[in-house]
């Protein structure tokens, strides 16, 4: 009697187990589809010929002509051998790629060394008000970008460098980017310095190294991987930044703002937007894979562990 009940229970639970497993697999597939669909669809549309882009069809001959178009100087492209228009064209996006690379690159070249020194000091020294300063730096992250953009917009209209107002220049955008990148990088790098045991530094001190020798010859080489991760984060941050690029960068279009130039007389030219979108996304995609393990800490400043 008990044996029968037991085997029945085993059968029932095996059935339940299978059902649960199927349900779980279904849920996983659903999650995968939810995540991948927008990215896949962007990639598919980018290689669709223009006449197929405005439909959900998956039957088409892949083409790179959309990339030709977004990197072309013409305003209308005519199909070779015919006089049929291949498409109205936004502005050539090549200068925008350069702008994005220069602005993001210069932003990290300035911010990361300064942030590294500051982070090291916050981690290793006790000095007047260091705790409060650190919290204050954390809270600057919550200042809305618009409140930074307004005064810098009015200031940069009047500040002239090399005969040009700073408004709408790469330099102007780099300066404003500091307000978000620098505090962020300090916190992030401080996390890496904190994780480093300071016995080696102590030993070097006992051996007669001064503060700066310890910093440059002992500590910096050891935290280099962390600094690299922080640089990647800072690069992604300024590459994807939109509000400053729109208000301060203006006609010096970064790629994020250049996406808007795919809007023509007939509305947004989606096949061009998709191609430009891939250009914006792919470098960040690889960088994101590189910092995969640090993303959670990076987003929450280590608050969730």
């Amino acid at each position, binding site marked *: 009697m008990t044996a029968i009940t037991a085997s029945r229970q085993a059968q029932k639970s095996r059935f339940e187990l299978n059902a649960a497993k199927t349900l779980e697999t279904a849920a996983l597939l659903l999650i995968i589809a939810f995540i991948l669909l927008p990215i896949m669809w962007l990639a598919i549309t980018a290689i669709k010929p223009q006449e197929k882009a405005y439909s*959900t069809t998956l039957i088409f001959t892949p083409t790179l002509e959309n990339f030709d178009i977004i990197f072309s100087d013409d305003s209308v492209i005519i199909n070779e051998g015919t006089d049929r228009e291949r498409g109205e064209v936004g502005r050539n996006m090549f200068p925008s790629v350069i702008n994005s690379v220069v602005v993001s690159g210069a932003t990290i070249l300035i911010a990361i060394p300064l942030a590294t020194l500051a982070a090291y000091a916050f981690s290793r020294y006790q000095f007047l008000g260091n705790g409060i300063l650190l919290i204050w730096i954390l809270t600057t992250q919550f200042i809305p970008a*618009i409140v930074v953009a*307004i005064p810098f917009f009015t200031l940069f209209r009047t500040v002239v460098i090399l005969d040009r107002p700073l408004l709408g220049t790469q330099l102007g955008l780099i300066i404003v980017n500091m307000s978000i990148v620098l505090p962020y990088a300090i916190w992030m790098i401080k996390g890496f310095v904190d994780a480093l045991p300071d016995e080696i530094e102590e030993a070097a001190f006992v051996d007669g190294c001064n503060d700066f020798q310890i910093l440059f010859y002992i500590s910096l080489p050891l935290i280099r991987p962390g600094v690299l991760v922080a640089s990647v984060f800072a690069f992604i941050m300024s590459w994807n930044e939109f509000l400053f690029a729109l208000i301060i960068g203006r006609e010096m279009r970064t790629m994020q703002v250049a996406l808007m130039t795919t809007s023509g007389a007939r509305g947004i030219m989606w096949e061009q937007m998709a191609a430009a979108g891939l250009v*914006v*996304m792919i470098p960040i995609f690889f960088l*994101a894979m590189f910092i995969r393990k640090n993303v959670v800490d990076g987003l929450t400043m280590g608050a969730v562990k």
Partner: protein
Amino acid sequence: MRKKRWVPWVLVGPALLIIVLTTIYPLVAALYFSFHKYRLRKPPQFAISIGEGGISIDWSLLTLDNYALAFSDSRFINSLQVTFWFTVISVALSVIMGLFIAVVVQKGGRLHTLTKVLLIFPFAVSPALKGYSWRFMLNENYGIYDLLIDQLIVGPVNAVLSLVNLLPIIEIPLISESIVWLGDKFWALFMLAMSETWGWAPLIALMFVGALGSIDEQIFEAARIDGANRLQIFFRVTLPLLRPVILIVTMLKTIFSLKMFDQVVTMTGGGPVRATQTINYYIHQIGFVRSLDIGYASAMSYILVIVLTICAALYVSLVLNRD
């Protein structure tokens, strides 16, 4: 150990100087602007002027008009409401979906691991691009989402509804298959929140996965031995243990949502009829697109600063009190 007092200041100094210049300067300047009549079209007259006779202050140029205007401007009130509802919807969806994803992918298995790797993907898509791609996919004529929603959700639901309607009890109206998602006030705001959820739920899931990983497996084992089923384990064990992390993540996401701007520009343009005009978007419109009223834009952004300061204080105290 190392005693030289000036060393840390040399190290911190340059970074601190730049942070002060790029955050404190604009905060002070915007506050100052907000008490003035200041439109871009003509040079502003400021209360404090530095002339030959030193600094002079003309009190009559200071005004509270911009703040008074904010609270009587129905469009600003509207942007507060839009931002509030956007925040509520996007935070709720992101956290709940993040929890769901985390619980599903948590265990080891090949498909689980693959999904965990994929969770990072939306992080690579910039907010501006996110807005455009969702707008494209929601297009009522050729959008892939529009097609999928009609085929997979609206179709089956309508089929069930028509069956129910066969019974002569009540007549339930069918769901329209031709909803213009971004042309409808409710759906535009909802889809804006969905695009945000697409970007954030996987990242929030990653945060929860990390937190779940640090919980002792024996706790779950004990609950299982005591005969708890999966739902009971989730609500009675997992959820209470995750509570502190959920609070922090919710607060963090709330702060991000209150600052919503990028996708509004690229996805809905604030429309239809201001239904998705968030505070940031409206400030941008006033300051840089329409009336070019810097004084008023500054005043409104200060109201946003105050709201965010409260949230930031809550967030910081949550984080600091954890350990």
